[in-house]
């Protein structure tokens, strides 16, 4: 197999250290859902759907002062190299939890007391970084559902591959690499809403990887805004900030 990083500093798929994989985000792709989005992030193909705010069942789960946010991250059996058992795995249950916790700070859940907001992430094809890709899609799907939001949530991973800190690991790099650090942020507030880390990093490498991930998140934020612009204003140019 080819080296993870060659002499020219290129990765096995030809990317440079700080390159993202090709990314495509589309908003509003499902009819029934109140909000939806589709993301391609490298080989990841993920659908995000939002239902609600709606009545909570069972009723005693309802909270008097805010909405209950529920999240289901699920991988289709055909999404992986070998068939994945369709029953939710422990990994999926954990990811569902951290994704929910990554999204919740950005949602004005107090505007919707005694209701439930359901976020579904269906991974149709998986590649490295599916939780980050899913968060990016879920965040725009929530905006597409017309739910009041404090901010979008943008996510991207960094990691260590072939001894070097790199941005956005794909499946091969995730498996062969030394560390993976998925991060999600609220870009307008510089706040971290998701952070996980596995693999070994020195303190310096950690600082670098964290910085890379933040840079990746910022790029994703632009793509998310463009996707929403395209859906609602019919074009994809980024918003030009007005200086007054």
């Amino acid at each position, binding site marked *: 197999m080819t080296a993870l990083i060659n002499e020219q500093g290129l990765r096995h798929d030809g990317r440079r250290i700080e390159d993202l994989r090709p990314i495509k985000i589309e908003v509003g792709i499902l009819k029934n859902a*109140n909000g939806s989005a589709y993301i391609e992030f490298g080989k990841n193909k993920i659908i995000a759907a939002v239902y*609600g*705010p*709606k*009545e909570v*069942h069972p009723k005693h789960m309802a909270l*008097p002062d805010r909405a209950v946010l529920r999240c289901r991250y699920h991988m289709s059996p055909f999404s992986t190299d070998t068939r994945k058992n369709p029953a939710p795995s422990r990994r999926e249950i954990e990811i569902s939890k951290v994704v929910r916790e990554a999204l919740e700070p*950005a949602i*004005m859940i107090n505007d*919707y*007391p*005694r*209701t439930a907001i359901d976020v579904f992430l269906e991974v149709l094809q998986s590649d490295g970084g599916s939780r980050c890709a899913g968060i990016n899609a879920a965040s725009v799907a929530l*905006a*597409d*559902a*017309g*739910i*009041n*939001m*404090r*901010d*979008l949530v943008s996510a991207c991973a960094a990691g260590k591959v072939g001894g070097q800190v790199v941005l956005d690991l794909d499946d091969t790099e995730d498996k062969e690499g030394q560390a993976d650090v998925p991060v999600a942020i*609220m*870009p*307008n*507030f510089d706040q971290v809403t998701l952070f996980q880390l596995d693999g070994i990093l020195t303190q310096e490498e950690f600082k670098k990887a964290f910085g890379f991930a933040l840079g990746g998140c910022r790029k994703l934020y632009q793509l998310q*805004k463009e996707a*929403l*612009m395209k859906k*609602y*204003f019919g074009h994809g140019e980024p*918003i030009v900030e*007005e200086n007054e």
Partner: protein
Amino acid sequence: MSEKKERKTMPGEALAVVEEFEPGEGTYSNGDSVRAAAVGIAEFDLKQRKVIVKSPVKKPALPTKGDSVEGVVESAQSNVINMRILRINGKPNEANFTGMLSTRQDPQRRGRRITVAKVADLMRATVYSTKNAIIHLALERDNDGVLSTVCSICGGGVVRINDRVKCKECGYVDERMLAPDFRGV
């Protein structure tokens, strides 16, 4: 100089500082700044010093005060009726909200309380409060009331006879608060 200024915006983007503009619909204030809470066009009212975000995104349909709602009676006790809301202001709604109609205050007829509705009836009511996030219903409007029902004894179709319903199968006569556009099955 125009009195309004506009710009496209996304959730979270700072629109103004609180000292300069008051947050209006579709915005929120977060300490120092007024920010967008939705995708939309921020409109700055330079006279009123207020900023709103007009959103092209369909808002979640939550029952609000004054809405006319239609739904199915899920439970009917002596003082309270719970109705699962299926339509809000004529539009289908799949969020499955339950509204509560207190029947304690309802009009008396012939010197006694009448049955307003029974389980499985289709009825229309008006949202008069969403305090504490409970959807309180009332039969406020002239066209509120039971829209359709079947015989509570045999399940047969019914016809309207003045302000009562009569079963076409078994002849049982039942009472309801009927809407003017009531239809027998």
